[in-house]
């Protein structure tokens, strides 16, 4: 039969020589290999204390952004929900009342904004669709919960900390992610 590739190797079925049957040389060889591995550095990352550095375009959990004065960017236009291939985003819009100018940047805002993290495929299309720079994917990942309903993130989970009142938490949440437009 014609071989498909020229990489086939014949199997050596010769009986073992005396040296091979003595096992000991092979065992010593193996033991020197394991001994050598004792001095190698373990590639382990001790996870909760140390985290792996991510690529600057890593897509983790979503964040709803605020501007420098701490006002929510989102205007509940619904483009992200339309763009979402997994249909993970739902929202309800509301009109800004007088006196709420410090809370919302524009006249319309999202009264309810939910992302189902079990449906989300972290593709980042919502981020690309958003005209207001209101939603982006952060470096945080691995959400954990005991119940399915815990994975439906509301506004209180998604909203970034206020940069005016909590600048440190804001910087931490913002992270070093590079948004490629």
């Amino acid at each position, binding site marked *: 039969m014609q071989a498909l590739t020229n990489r086939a190797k014949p199997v050596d079925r010769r009986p073992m020589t005396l040296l091979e049957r003595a*096992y000991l040389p092979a*065992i010593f060889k*193996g*033991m020197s*290999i*394991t*001994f050598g*591995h*004792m001095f*190698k*550095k*373990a*590639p*382990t990352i*001790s996870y909760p204390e140390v985290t792996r550095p991510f690529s600057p375009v890593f897509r983790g959990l979503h964040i709803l952004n605020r501007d420098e004065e701490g006002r929510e960017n989102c205007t509940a236009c619904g483009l992200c929900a339309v763009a979402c291939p997994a249909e993970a985003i739902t929202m309800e819009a509301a009109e800004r009342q007088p006196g709420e100018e410090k809370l919302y940047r524009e006249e319309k805002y999202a009264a309810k904004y939910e992302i189902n993290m079990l449906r989300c495929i972290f593709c980042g299309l919502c981020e690309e669709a958003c005209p207001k720079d209101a939603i982006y994917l952060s470096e945080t990942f691995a959400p954990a919960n005991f119940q399915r309903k815990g994975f439906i993130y509301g506004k209180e989970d998604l909203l970034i900390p206020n940069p005016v009142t909590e600048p440190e938490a804001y910087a931490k949440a913002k992270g070093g992610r590079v948004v490629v437009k």
Partner: protein
Amino acid sequence: MLLSIDLALIVEKLVLIVVVVMSSLVIAMYATFAERKVAAIMQDRIGPNRAGPGGIFQPLADGLKLFFKEEIIPNFSSKFLFILGPSLAMLTAMMTSAVIPWGDTVTLFGREIHLQIADINIGILYVFGVVSMGVYGIMIGSWASNNKFSLMGGLRAASQIISYELAMGIALIALLMVTGTLSLKAMVVGQMDGYWNVVKQPLGFLIFLICVFAECNRTPFDLPEAENELIGGYHTEYSSMKLGFYLFAEYINMFISSAVMVSLFFGGYDIPFINDGHMVEKIGQNWMAVAHVFMFLFKAFFFVFFFMWVRWTIPRFRYDQLMNLGWKVLIPLALFNMLVTGAVILALQ
């Protein structure tokens, strides 16, 4: 007067027994930890490091876990034998430590105390006797489990230990011909002045070492356990601390057989390249004895490490390979070694 001396002797021996037994338990405990750490380091991992600094309390956590686990005795098992199995395994593992010379004498409270529980003149035969009893623990436990995998494990253990005991015994005869004594203490003293026995009996040592691996059911001869063929072998049905006893007995056996190997072939508590007479004058006899004990433990720990090193290097033998190696290779080799040793001794006379 006579009675008071005897009482002091009994107290002395009791203290020694408690110290030896407790320390071998602690050493066995930390041997489980060392096993996991050695495995991890050899496989480029970190290993257990969460319980305490560097994972130092891991064995305590493991022990606690075993104590709190539900104790299951299968309905279809023979209860008495089921409990007897692990107890016997543990007992025989501990009993061997009685004849091992841990060090020289110390003088405390005006008494000369030998750092050996019993210096009986047939020490090495005692070790052999007790070690052969060890297989009963495994056999009884596996039989009482009434489980085919356990029984297979027990059968394998029995046939393996009997096969390898022969080669071990013959290898030892050659050593006895060289040393001319059966007492472990006398053997160690003999090695302190001259060469270590491993120099005189390298082939004997190699055979002995391989047989010790088989006797301890350690990889590459861990067929009685064989996780992936026999789902744990003889201790499949065991749970809680009874399982712990079996696992513990394995590690105690490992430590004790390392200690026996050190006493037989590696000069026992002899510190190499140091003249003991000069050292005793310098630091006193008691401190010398302490140094001896540490030297002994150092050597024994090296062998424990060696056991682990081999375990994480080579895979398990097949059953027919095991029997071939035992009967067709090691026994003829041991006989040959014995004959050559005898001829050399005869020629030197």
